């Protein structure tokens, strides 16, 4: 009995001695690892120390001035592709507008070729139908204007003799790219292909706002003809421009 007890005691002490040493080592190891981590992390953060400056601004849409059809609708809805001249009414009216987020003044410009002998007239218009004045219904809305009051402006390159565009001069050079005399000069342009330029006499001001708060002006473009014009599948190009001169 005694012998066996001694053996057991020996076994137990041996085991606890072994495990005791192992536990001490575990403790020490974990403390060392913790210390290393505590040193390494701040060093790494210090190395990646960053400074920054920042500011924010608003981005705006580029077109300060927009030309739209009707009441600030997409310009693609301005329908001029087919004009039937065989009817009784000798003109066609379309309504366009110039609008902007800002209250800036602008020149309204019209350029067109003269293959068909149309006459282009622009009238300033207002939304709504006024009993007395001429009205036109366009894209679902009514506009009224005075057909005696055209928008003040004139052709700037019209030849007095032919009523077509002048074949020489500043505008011919500008159109056909002859800037400094050294380039090829286009002297044989077909008379009806050279565009006529029309510009308002003075700057146009906005005098009203539409429902979404944009400044807007409405215009009626009347394309009219006389009996000499007939449906002969000719094409003209018409450009409407609004130019604002913002000084820096």
């Amino acid at each position, binding site marked *: 009995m005694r012998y066996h007890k001694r053996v057991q005691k020996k*076994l137990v002490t041996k085991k606890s001695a072994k495990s005791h040493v192992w536990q001490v080592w575990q403790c020490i190891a974990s403390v060392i690892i913790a210390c290393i981590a505590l040193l390494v992390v701040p060093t790494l953060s210090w190395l990646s120390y960053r400074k920054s400056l920042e500011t924010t601004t608003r981005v705006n849409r580029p077109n300060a001035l927009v030309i739209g059809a009707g009441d600030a609708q997409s310009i693609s809805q301005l329908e001029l592709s087919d004009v039937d001249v065989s009817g009784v009414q000798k003109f066609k009216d379309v309504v366009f507008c110039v609008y902007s987020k800002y209250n800036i003044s602008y020149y309204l410009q019209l350029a067109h070729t003269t293959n068909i002998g149309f006459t282009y007239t622009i009238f300033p218009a207002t939304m709504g139908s006024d009993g007395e004045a001429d009205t036109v219904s366009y894209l679902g809305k009514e506009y009224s204007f005075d057909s005696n009051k055209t928008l003040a402006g004139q052709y700037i390159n019209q030849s007095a003799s032919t009523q077509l565009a002048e074949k020489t001069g500043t505008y011919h050079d500008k159109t056909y790219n002859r800037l400094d005399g050294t380039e090829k000069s286009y002297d044989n342009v077909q008379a009806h292909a050279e565009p006529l330029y029309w510009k308002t006499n003075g700057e146009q001001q906005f005098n009203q706002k539409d429902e979404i708060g944009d400044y807007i002006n409405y215009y009626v473009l009347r394309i009219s003809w006389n009996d000499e014009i007939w449906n002969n599948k000719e094409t003209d190009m018409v450009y409407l421009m609004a130019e604002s001169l913002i000084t820096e």
Partner: protein
Amino acid sequence: MRKKQTEENKLTAEEYRLRAKMNMLACKNEMKIFLFTGLVLVTALTIITVIAVAWFASNREVQGRNMMVTIAGSSYELAVMGEKGEWDTDESVSTGEEQEIDGNNYWTTGKDSAILWALNDNSNLENQKGEGRGIEPGSRGSMTFYILAKTNDNLTVNFSLQMIGQLEDGGKIPEDAAELMLGHILLFAGYDTDNSSYCGWISEDAETWTMNLDSNATLKREEDGTLTWTGNVENGKVYPVTIYWIWPDTFGQYLFKNQVRIGKNPVLFPDDKGEGIDSISALPEGLFEKMCQTPEGAVSNRYLKWSRESDLEQEKQLSKEEFKELVTVEGLLNIRNEKEYNIAFYGKLCNYYNKADQYIGENIAYVKLKLETK
């Protein structure tokens, strides 16, 4: 001998039970110690993680500094002069510490590592408090910041500039709008007032260049896009660096070498790379190629846009084909060198550029300009 061994090895039931009990106790003991050391380890790990997270977090925004480990002093600080912008309302970015140096008032980093970039009359970001209008094509200006040296002799500061677009509600902008923004709102390191032209383009598409600044320092654009400012400094003095920004009004500003056809608009790349020409103001190689790219499934590249999102698939395909045929590196070079200059072609290019401007204006509400040092 044998008999004795067998006698020793054979244990009675009683002794087995005792041994088992001893083993169990030993195991329990080990378990206790294991748990204890484990707990210590877990606690230590938690403390380290918390410090690290708080550390990294504090480097970007201002926060309470209760639990901070103080770092050793940095060799420079950033400083700015001026007023806070109208849309800089983000409360987590401070205006900085006010300091007077050589008679001027500055806002500096230091306590806060991220501060607002203050504006002055030249900034033109149209974001001044009370009269902010925002920027649009044709807008341009300059932003200046100062390097406040906290050491003597040589100092090198690496930094990068970022533009981040945002929607009205603070959300992320579409991917192609972000690309177009990078190609349309440009940053330069220098501007030549006499020639109305820029130099030192800061962009992914730019090339390396070196610029000598007035303050006897040099600014360099490295291969990887980082900007490096190197100078001989004196502790406590400020060294200015000016960044010029522009949203070109017309595409001609990218193409032409002078202002003849673009009026008052400044030129972006007035020179061509060649013998003796400083690459700092030259057209980067490969830029025209990038302008001609038509990525799969996209309706724009970084500079030009050929159709709208709302177009039908067929229309988009046609527009893309037309763009690919029309816009070639040779064509762009012909315009740049004014050889066989075709005004209709130029008009078409400007149209692509203007469509992109329109898209940017419609799809980005705010842009944040951020300078970050490394």
